[in-house]
């Protein structure tokens, strides 16, 4: 299992946005975290919807890569689509995100993701993504 400091699984985009791995849950699900700073700011003092979407997507890819590794499979991940639901304004504090693989198919995966700030049971945004797992 990867250490919490291991950032190899993150894309250059995610690293550039300041996303990092917060911890691994007991079920081997990565929790991603981004600090609030100007890089993610939209309306003053609030997250830009695109930055929140980027965090959700990153948490989805991180879990899918971990699952592929767990199954000893290698694949190039390609986005098919994402639908983001914005539930509450992201305020000027750290935001966390965690994904769940709803379906792990042979060629594609369906993933749901939630992002929260203070309380994991009160998400500020959720996403559903379909990701293609191409042969590498």
């Amino acid at each position, binding site marked *: 299992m990867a250490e919490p400091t291991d950032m190899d699984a993150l894309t250059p*985009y995610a690293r550039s946005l300041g996303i990092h791995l917060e911890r691994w849950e007991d079920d081997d699900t990565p929790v991603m975290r981004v600090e609030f700073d*100007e890089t993610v*700011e939209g309306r003053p003092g609030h997250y830009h919807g695109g930055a929140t*979407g*980027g965090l959700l997507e990153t948490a989805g890819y991180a879990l899918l890569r971990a699952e592929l590794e767990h199954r000893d499979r290698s694949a190039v991940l390609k986005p098919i689509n994402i639908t983001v639901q914005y539930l509450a304004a992201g305020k000027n504090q750290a935001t966390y995100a965690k994904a769940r693989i709803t379906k792990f198919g042979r060629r594609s995966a369906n993933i749901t993701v939630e992002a929260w700030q203070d309380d994991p049971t009160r998400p500020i945004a959720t996403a559903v993504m379909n990701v293609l797992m191409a042969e590498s």
Partner: protein
Amino acid sequence: MTGEELKFDPAEATKFFTARGHSGWLGLTYCDHGDDWVELELPWREDLLGEEGQRVLASGPILSLMDMASGMAIWRTLDEFSAIATLDLRVDYVRPAREGASVFGRSQCYRLTRSAAFVRGLAHDGDAGDPVAHIQAVFMKIAPQGPVVPNG
């Protein structure tokens, strides 16, 4: 749009919105607009790539580009700036963007109600006839005292 006095000028507004924050970090710039649409440009950047080893722009920046272009399209259609919040945004990534190319995000506000704004749009890397992504989104207008209910 020349010779017309716009209360909401997307070219000027883009300069304001991209002076700082997430849009500024992405380096978004204004391209073009019509009565109910706005197109913005996301320049190619090495640090916005997705999968390691692939020379492909990550999908996150396209989401941000389309969110911003959609907000601008709504304000252009309203012809004023007002507080709005993204409620729902769907992006279909139909093909990867070409390496080294800017990505252009064009969004159109096709329906405004008292409380909601409906938009659709596409992202392309030079030819709008061959998009890299299609989007659809709903934004809510934020009333001064807080959000209003859908269809209210």
